[in-house]
């Protein structure tokens, strides 16, 4: 199991468009991926867009990703790079 933490810098947070990109990216791994909004403690399956959007992640919120499965290491590095670039 791998975990990573990231603070959202995008001014509108994890809203529709970035959430869409993020879910797509997460869905490309076989590992199960959970995303948690550390601000309110809510967590969701990172491959489900409605659930991810319902976390209400805003700018400045810290999120925690937990990855578990065969490709968890690739997922960890690639998702971190993705977050830095897009969010």
């Amino acid at each position, binding site marked *: 199991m791998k975990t990573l*933490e*990231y*603070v*959202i*810098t995008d001014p*509108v*947070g994890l*809203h*529709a*468009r970035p*959430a*869409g*990109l993020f*879910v*797509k990216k997460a869905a490309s791994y076989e590992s199960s991926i959970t995303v948690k909004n550390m601000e309110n403690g809510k967590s969701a*399956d990172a*491959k*489900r*867009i*409605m*659930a991810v*959007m*319902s976390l*209400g992640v*805003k*700018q*400045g919120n*810290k999120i925690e990703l937990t990855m578990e499965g065969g490709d968890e290491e690739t997922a960890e590095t690639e998702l971190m790079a993705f977050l830095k670039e897009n969010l």
Partner: protein
Amino acid sequence: MEIFHGKSVLQGIAIGSLYVMEKKESTWTKHMIDNTDEEVARFQKAREQAIAELDELYEEALDQVGEENAMIFDVHKMMLEDMDYLEAIENLIRTEKVNAEYAVTVTGEEFSAMFSAMEDDYMRARAADVLDISGRVVRVLEGREEPGLHSREPVIILADDLTPSETIAMDKTKILAFVTKHGSANSHTAILARSLNIPSLVNTDVEISKEYHGKEAVVDGVTGTLFIEPDAPTLEAKQKEQVQIREKNEKLKLLIGQDNVTKDGRRINLYANMGNVEDVEKVLANDAGGIGLFRSEFLYLGRDTFPTEEEQFEAYKEVVSRMGGKKVIIRTLDIGADKKADYFGLDPEENPALGYRAIRICLTQREVFRTQLRAIYKASAFGTVSIMFPMIISVEEIRKIKAFVEEIKAELKAEGVAFGEVELGIMIETPAAALVSGELAKEVEFFSIGTNDLTQYTLAIDRQNQKLEEFYDSHHPAVLKLIEMTIQNGHKEGIWVGICGELAADDTLTETFLNMGLDELSVSPTYILKLRDKIRNIG
């Protein structure tokens, strides 16, 4: 003539006939079904068709409004593939033996309610998206066609609210303006209006009645007013105003490359304020003479660790090189108060505006300061760089800063690193600094007056507190006196003085500032040409 009011999302005036957008009523009713497998299959088929429609809309949007705005249809498609949503619908069909139209509608409403309940405006706007996709599936289930705009002439669209799929299906050359009864500044209609650059009103107090269809109307995005069947004087006045606005915008573009000089020959520098490195684009497009305020804290915010010297150097270097020799004034870290980053480990404070912030952090956490100063000096080899220090209250602070700067320069020299001539200045944003500006002027090469904080500190009014709005006066004589005093004291020592706060963009004060002898105004890029125009008409 009927008059209505709404929230304007874009300045400008549109005149034309109204086109009332009707939504074709659906006719389905809730009923029980026997074969749940068949009903689920019927739902799946409709869902696939809805996805195919969305694919088409995405392609269309890509051509019309670009990838960023088209992405919403991709998101809609993903929502239609969302397992939580699909499972909820299928469960409803199977356990309650209800028809697909009902199951989709109820599920859509449940998800929509979840988004509506959220605190965040942007997320609340997503409630409309869920209803939109559910409505699409229901429409396909019922075998209805997609509604749309069918008009030969360009029209003003009047609607309850518009979903992204409705707006994108419209021929954009036929739209003069949008007026919606619902919607917010973050709604898709508003976003689309901005990207098409057409005046529009949302949240308007008008009834969406068929009676208005075809009637003449004026949308005034300046005042947020809708006139239906305007009387002759109103129509004439608005036509005139429309022409004036158009001419004004065209005329402003002609000012690119022109000097900021009054009729009687007084000259002033117009520089731009910016934060993110990407803002340089706008700075250059609006013909700013330089960057009067580069808010370096944007490099520090929204991350988990301090930006390294290399990261900062790259950012400064990019801005400085792209400005091609024009002056770039970098303000050192102004963090604290309302701008915070966790990794600084700042304690919560009773009075953050009066607290541990800006230069106070830099002078006590020297390593943080060192990293930034080294990065700025290294970037100074690539253009014209000035540094200004925020939140200064005393001569003592400047002496400490200057001694530290000398240390940094010696370090770089010893390492054989190239750097240019760097002008050092300070922000005048505390009453203390304004009052001792005569002494401060002997120590630095320029002053930049930060009017937002100067006003807040002078009037003892917290600008974040809305209850204090009635007491707040941005033209308070005390503030203007401090500004004038600062300019005079600066000039006595032969240094230049500018303003980089919000007041700089206030064109009712431009003449006053010119009369005080101000040397520079630094404003957000979109105000540059407007101010240039103002200045060229003075005297």
